[in-house]
């Protein structure tokens, strides 16, 4: 969940890139890191195996826009896609604000995509949340490889919940679709944050209205008592 710090004037969001093994989650972060200006990014940290496969997570902190004096910060994580690392994926999902589901577009990867999406849903339930509550987008990656499934089919398989979420085609190695995906999830998080703040503002108005009414009533009662 997002963190608001009124002293440092910061709002922090945690985005997790999820998906099956070798679908391109780390490649998304590597490309983002190569493109964002130095002043707006931290180091890209990868906890990987000797074979360069994600063991725990990759982490990339980004500073985005300053809005009304508040700095917005986005912390990007990837999970290890290999099936055996499910306990690790659960840890990385803690306090998640938004998810990018990266799918491998190849026909022969469809089963792994579906398994991974189901696994995401299950792991979110373990955290006491669900895709109904968390903004997410889908990226169909590896469109440049031999045998990609059509986008409408991928949408039918991986984006067929009650509300269809934004989906993007991607070739993460060349950067295609990477920033479109990142901007979409960031926007969804800011929009959700704005909605929650509107609710908070309404509650605050109601509280002050109740408090003013109580004060006024006390004044009338006191005046009546004096008379």
């Amino acid at each position: 969940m997002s963190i608001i710090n009124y002293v440092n004037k910061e709002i922090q969001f945690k985005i997790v890139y999820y998906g099956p093994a070798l679908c391109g989650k780390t490649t998304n972060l590597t490309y983002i890191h190569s493109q964002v200006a130095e002043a707006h990014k931290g180091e890209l940290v990868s906890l990987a195996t000797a074979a360069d496969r994600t063991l725990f997570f990759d982490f990339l902190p980004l500073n985005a826009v300053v809005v009304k004096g508040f700095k917005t910060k986005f912390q990007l994580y990837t999970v290890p896609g290999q099936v055996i690392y499910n306990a690790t994926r659960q840890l990385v999902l803690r306090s998640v604000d938004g998810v990018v589901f990266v799918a491998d577009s190849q026909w022969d990867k469809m089963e792994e995509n579906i398994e991974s999406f189901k696994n995401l849903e299950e792991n979110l339930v373990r955290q006491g949340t669900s895709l109904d509550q968390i903004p997410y987008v889908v990226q169909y990656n590896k469109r440049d490889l031999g045998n990609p499934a059509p986008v409408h089919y991928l949408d039918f398989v991986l984006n067929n919940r009650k509300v269809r979420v934004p989906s993007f085609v991607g070739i993460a190695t060349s950067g295609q679709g990477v920033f479109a995906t990142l901007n979409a999830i960031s926007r969804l998080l800011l929009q959700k944050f704005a909605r929650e703040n509107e609710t908070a503002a309404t509650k605050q108005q109601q509280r002050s209205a109740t408090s003013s009414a109580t004060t006024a009533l006390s004044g009338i009662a006191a005046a009546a008592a004096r008379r």
Partner: protein
Amino acid sequence: MPILTIQAAGGLLKALEDFLEKSEASFVLIIERGGSILSQHGEIPDTIDPTILSALAAGSFAATREVARRVGETEFSALHQQGRQSHILMSAINDEAMLMTVFGPKTTLGLVRFYSAGAVKQIAAVLEQARGEPQIPIDLGSEVTDDSCDVFEEPSRRV
């Protein structure tokens, strides 16, 4: 959503100041379970990015806690890493946060552990109180929530 009001942040900082003064540790971070920093104090070398440190520490602590749980251990409150020059003590504050203390040869593990116990209680009380605080609304305006807004620019594809 965790909200750090000016009052809560002041309470956390005061607890860290007291703890650092008594324990003579180098620096200390309060980290929420997702890996974000809630508060920090002490001399953090320029070569260290505390944001990265907190993400790694949260992962490490959570992983060790999970290992402990899976071997049937219900109590897991602290993790100590002994180095040559710098040592690290990570202590659970509650289910939502942890305290990470980095200390050098000026002090000892025993002293840091002793004072961290008091600091943890103090911090837990501040966080518990902050949980009940109402959110002060922040109006982000439409410029960043607009569907056409790009939060991040991609220089090589700029037209």
